[in-house]
């Protein structure tokens, strides 16, 4: 069973402790959301889980039972972890086709590239329409598709998504969440950091609440959504819209 297991993850920037002994796991075919205020350390966890940030001694990462702690980023990818960071990190000057081709650069993905390509293009038909377009000329929503599509080309077992809906219009946002549900159905696990907590909890199976770098709650998403504290902090006062008049 494909599973990412993060144990006792601590991250610090100089003197500042960003994350303190956080333990999380994601299994294949499930969506797990991390809730938390800005600066709570959500992005740091994702970046560390992709091997981009050094974790402090005592932290450990295990992928399918294999220890990948302290490995360089490319080995995290080879182990089956793909990150779509907040700034999307696409190759803006290259074409859609080249971006997807680069997604299949990891050795684990090379053989399965044609299958994965078919899968990505089925998920995002718009990418099939313009393979030769330079990504920088595409709209924000389309660029997000390229970013997620490229991550899926690396045949990941676990997809890490950092604020995928940031800057997307409500329409594109709905589209995005529908695609996430479809991605889950292909047996990929998703670890999601999302500002739009309401929608994220609606599609997630489980969730973690992160406060000042510590995991303070973890439960099934239905339980979290009905938790009064969570509702207040992340879902707005009445859970639907903010009314300050």
């Amino acid at each position, binding site marked *: 069973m494909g599973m990412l297991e993060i144990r006792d993850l601590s991250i610090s920037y100089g003197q500042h402790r960003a994350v303190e002994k956080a333990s999380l796991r994601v299994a294949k075919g499930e969506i797990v959301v991390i809730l938390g205020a800005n600066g709570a350390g959500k992005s740091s966890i994702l970046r560390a889980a992709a091997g*981009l940030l050094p974790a402090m001694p005592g932290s450990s990462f295990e992928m399918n039972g294999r220890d990948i702690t302290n490995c360089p980023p490319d080995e995290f*990818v*080879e182990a089956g972890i793909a990150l779509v960071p907040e700034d999307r990190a696409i190759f*803006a000057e290259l074409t859609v086709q080249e971006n997807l081709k*680069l997604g299949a650069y990891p050795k684990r993905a090379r053989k399965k590239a044609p299958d994965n390509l078919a899968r990505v293009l089925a998920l995002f038909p718009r990418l099939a329409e313009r393979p030769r377009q330079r990504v920088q000329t595409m709209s924000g929503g389309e660029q997000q598709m390229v970013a997620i599509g490229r991550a899926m080309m690396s045949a990941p077992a676990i997809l890490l998504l950092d604020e995928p809906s940031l800057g997307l219009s409500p329409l594109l946002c709905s589209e995005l969440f529908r695609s996430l549900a479809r991605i889950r159905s292909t047996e990929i696990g998703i670890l999601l950091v999302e500002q739009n907590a309401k929608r994220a909890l609606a599609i997630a199976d489980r969730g973690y609440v992160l406060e000042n770098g510590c995991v303070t709650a973890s439960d099934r998403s239905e339980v979290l959504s009905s938790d009064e504290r969570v509702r207040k902090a992340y879902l707005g006062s009445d859970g639907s819209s903010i009314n300050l008049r």
Partner: protein
Amino acid sequence: MDILIGGFLLGGTYALMALGLQLQYGVARIMNLANGEMLVAGAFGAFWFYSGFQMRPFLAIVLIVPLAFVVNWAIYHYLLTPLVRRAKSRGQLEVDGILATFGMSFILVGLMLAVFGGEYFSYSYLERAVFVLEQPYGLNRIAAFCASLVFCIALVVWLSHTRSGLALRAVAVNPTAAGLVAIKVARTSAIAFAIGGAVTASGGALLSMFLTFDASIGVIFTLKALIIVILGGVGEIRGTVAAAFLLGLAETAVASLVDPGLTLAAAYLLFIVVLLVRPRGLFGSRS
């Protein structure tokens, strides 16, 4: 007409040396001010093999290229990687890189002065005249041109049609994203820098077949390569080749119509005009 052909012949070798710099700057993000010295080193290499061992320059290149690759790889690995690690931003790396390679250019000049002395060097190889459209051209120039062309085409094809070439371009465009698709960014940068240096050195070896050179002439070639890269647009391989031919043409025209002493001035003027009209280079599209 002979300006056209002469410029074209010169442009071929220019393209080669500028592509070397383009790889180093575009991929490894090092604006290498010692590029010209690497070129002169290549020229000295060819000279040394020819005068010492009667080795033909084309054969010498086979030895010079791997040698230059190793030397440049070592320069990147031991001298530039610390700067890459230290840099907080791309801008800082550019400044540090400029300063460091600037120091290296002096060291290289100093070394070449110590080994070969300050005189002018040249050797005669393939000095027969060949007639193109009833005008005589040195066979050495034409041979050097053909060799450069072969190298350039090989390089362009490799960059645009192979997996490793694509990986190189990926690092050039977005190093963070490249790391996320399992490309080993540090290694790829080192390789790009080394290949760039090797390409430049091979350009120097080819130039030495028909050009007189001395140990301190490198800065002129650095300037020319920089001008070509900027004219063509950073990261634009085809633009670089086109700009190289343009510069070769402009220089030949000024040399034969005005005065050979003003070629660099002409190159520089061209550079200024283009920068003012199109700040991203003639073929640049990056925003």
